[in-house]
């Protein structure tokens, strides 16, 4: 089974802190994604990566950066956390050639609260 593991399920940070959210997948997938999920807004794409050291902005990249130094690991960085970044963060991965389903495989999520 594909496994996407997010390092922290729950985090509480203070405004202005630097926050790292880590995601690791064990299926040798090329594509990795970071979404945030908010009530009434659904899932929105922050950043994605289609290869090591490659990254592309999604729909809401402001206030975030990412790092992909190894194929299996994709990190989301909040340089200076703000209260409006309180959210559920979801990491996902998929193979480059997606096969018949085109599905994304999601991690369990990291719930971040910024005080």
């Amino acid at each position, binding site marked *: 089974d594909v496994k*996407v593991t997010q390092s922290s399920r729950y985090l509480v940070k203070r405004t202005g802190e630097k926050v790292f959210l880590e995601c690791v997948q064990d299926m040798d997938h090329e*594509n990795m*994604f970071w979404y945030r999920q908010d009530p*009434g*807004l*659904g*899932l*929105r*794409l922050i950043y*994605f990566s*289609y290869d090591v050291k490659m990254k*592309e902005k*999604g729909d809401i990249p402001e206030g975030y950066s990412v790092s992909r130094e190894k194929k299996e690991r994709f990190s989301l960085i909040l340089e200076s956390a703000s209260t409006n970044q309180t959210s559920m963060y*979801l990491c*996902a991965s*998929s193979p480059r050639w*997606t096969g*018949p*389903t*085109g*599905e*994304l*495989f*999601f*991690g*369990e*999520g990291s*719930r971040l609260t910024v005080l």
Partner: protein
Amino acid sequence: EDQVTQSPEALRLQEGESSSLNCSYTVSGLRGLFWYRQDPGKGPEFLFTLYSAGEEKEKERLKATLTKKESFLHITAPKPEDSATYLCAVQAVNTGFQKLVFGTGTRLLVSP
């Protein structure tokens, strides 16, 4: 702009009471429409992909159908374990990667 609207926002059913969830979409050429299930505090879990109008997919008590404007997720004789949020997403043909546009979901509660 690609858009997905799901209705109803929430649905409460009795065990065995069949119903349907709706996903309306506007997209500049549909590459695929996806259904996911999400349990509280968990990430979404893939259910189906539909590619063209008229297509149907089934899995246990769930059946997904697709027209040119909307998709339905039919739930037949639901059980309490079907309680979850069901998410719909679309991918447009003009996207060079798997950029999915998600709806806000339908929260389903099935009571025994």
